[in-house]
């Protein structure tokens, strides 16, 4: 009975699926989905090698400080960094006084309450504050940016396919829209106030090119020249740090954990071989074991460190 019902149910589902398949394929052949500009012109992020890549990767403090400088002088005008506190900057190598000064001189103040009147007010930031948002709220942000909302950057390096490489590609990927694209897809012409960027999902990004000229940010002595490419790499590295501040500690403990587990596994394996070698010998039926088996046992016993 179960099998008869099962058979019918199976026929039902498989039948409806095959009908769906036929309808689907007929529709596909009759009107194949047209090519789209996104499909043809969207590009995957460029290669970007950071010191924090790979299982032994570590942050390059110097580069993170440069990236922070780019964020402070360029990005922070529009983009918030709400998950990060000023005190976290210690990890970039800034000392107590420097962190205090950075917080104190930050371009946006922290919302607060006037202690006398109780009215909304602002105060200077202190190290325990998170980075204040440049806009009071979403509406203010949209109204200042032609109805586009500059996203928070704290997690950007984990929230996009490609991570830091994506950020680097967006920052250096602005270009004029190819003529062929407009000829082929007239509807996909970059609208007014948007900017063509093949690394952005729908090719047209609201953010105007933020890094426009070499030397836009002045790096301290002993740093590489602040070319657009260098600044984009540095800020991508910095945002990798804001997204995953514990990356270095994670890599370090990972090596220790793997070391421990591999040793434990090897010991576990040896004792397993030991225990089972004994068992196999004991349970062998009657008569001498076959020569092949015997050789195998001696070998495994030797490997396990027990006299055959």
């Amino acid at each position: 009975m179960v099998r008869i019902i099962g058979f019918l149910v199976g026929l039902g589902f498989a039948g409806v699926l095959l009908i769906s398949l036929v309808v689907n394929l007929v529709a596909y052949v009759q009107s194949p989905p047209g090519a789209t500009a996104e499909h043809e012109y969207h590009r995957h992020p460029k290669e970007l090698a950071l010191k924090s890549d790979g299982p032994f990767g570590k942050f390059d403090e110097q580069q993170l400080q440069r990236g922070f400088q780019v964020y402070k002088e360029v990005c922070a005008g529009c983009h918030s960094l709400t998950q990060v506190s000023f005190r976290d900057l210690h990890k970039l190598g800034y000392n107590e006084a420097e962190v205090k000064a950075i917080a104190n001189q930050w371009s946006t103040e922290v919302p607060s309450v006037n202690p006398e009147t109780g009215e909304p007010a602002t105060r200077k930031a202190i190290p325990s504050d998170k980075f204040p948002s440049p806009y009071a709220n979403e509406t203010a942000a949209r109204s200042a940016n032609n109805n586009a909302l500059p996203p928070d950057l704290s997690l950007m390096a984990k929230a996009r396919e490609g991570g830091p490489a994506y950020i680097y590609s967006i920052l250096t990927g602005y270009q004029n829209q190819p003529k062929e694209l407009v000829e082929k897809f007239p509807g996909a012409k970059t609208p007014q106030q948007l900017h063509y960027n093949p690394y952005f999902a729908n090719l047209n990004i609201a953010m105007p090119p933020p890094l426009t000229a070499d030397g836009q940010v002045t790096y301290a002595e002993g740093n590489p020249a602040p070319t657009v490419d260098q600044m984009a790499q540095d800020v991508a590295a910095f945002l990798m740090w804001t997204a995953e501040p514990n990356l270095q500690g994670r890599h370090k403990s990972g090596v220790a954990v793997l070391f421990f587990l591999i040793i434990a596994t090897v010991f576990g394996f040896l004792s397993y071989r030991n225990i089972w070698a004994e068992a196999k010998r004991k349970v062998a039926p009657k008569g001498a074991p076959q020569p092949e088996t015997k050789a195998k046992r001696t070998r495994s016993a030797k490997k396990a460190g027990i006299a055959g």
Partner: protein
Amino acid sequence: MSFAWAKPYEPKTELGRWIDDRLPLPRLVYNAVGGGYPVPRNLNYGWNFGVLSGIFLTIQIITGIGLAMWYYSSADGAFNSIEHIMRDVNGGWMMRYAHSNGASFFFIVVYIHIFRGLFYGSYKAPREMVWMLGLVIYLLMMATAFMGYVLPWGQMSYWGAQVITGFFSAFPLVGEPIRVWLLGGYAPDQAALTRFFSLHYLLPFVIAGVVILHIWSLHIPGSSNPTGVEVKNEKDTLPFHPFYTAKDGWFAGLFLTLYAAVVFFGPNALGHPDNYIPANPLATPAHIVPEWYFWPFYAILRAFTVDFILPAKLWGVLAMFASILLLFFLPWLDKSPVRSGHYRPVFKRFFWLLIIDVAILGYCGGSPAEPLYVALSQIAAAYYFAHFLIVLPLVSKFERPLPLPNSISESVLHGEAGEAAPAGLAPAAAQ
């Protein structure tokens, strides 16, 4: 206790005797996973995944309890509380990555465990109850994993919850009210998040309870084995401890090494980047996909695209539920008296075809719903149902199985190369 020759528990100390007289818990453990449980001596590494599943359940419960101490189940605060755990709680990032990847590894080992059962006919009499309780555990795991994925309240959390609870609205008349009742509102929000958190904390303990039943029912007939021949005498078995504790122990070490490699060096490899964007009910992600372990079912759901008598969506939802529920009937669909796939030449081919089929479904489920992916998943889904409901019953009726070895020890002795008898050798030995 399953076999007459099982070693009885003998407390060695005065204290042990005292406890045994009053609460024979050590005796219970000894008989369950100690020297008192005789296990077929020819188990291969496929049989390690039951214990591994238990290990991952434990990891999930322990890391989950830690996370719950810091997690804040509010629509405004959930996302930030996770980030707080990741950044400022001591060892929080480790707990969180261990938990999110632990879920993936839990599913990996459970899938291997299930497919091992499928290949070796572990669902057949007298182990039907073991199989069905296992499926109950699997269903509970799916519910737990889904609700856990909602908790970070990222974009995929939110839209995943929207899509999955939307299944219920496929049912006519009652569907929509049920959906609203389950969510506590018209869309996922505070009420849904809080109740998901509550249930996400509860269900693992329910799973642990069913695991106990699962093991209990297993210990009535004893473990199955790669030959599928039942244990005949003491020569066929070894005590669980030290033999299988040693084998499970080193293999668990190997698997935990793999797990640690992912947790520490690629913790986001199995996740979706969109879940690092806070939930936004006004912005739908371009591709909503569930976690990888649900992809085959997601492909089945989306494979139904035609309103044939019933709406396509309802077909998809019914088929998705049916794809798991039909497994409950497997012991009665596959009537072949031979358990092990090693001795079933036709079944074996179809089994590997099923593995490929499920892999294709998984691949399609993770891809965007474009016509060609959908077409592929339609073929694969049709085979999935045909395999269990049409092919297996027919195969079990017409197939001529190979001769079985007379006993486990016979197959082991002739095939000492490994612990399991190689497929080719054992039947030859029987002739």
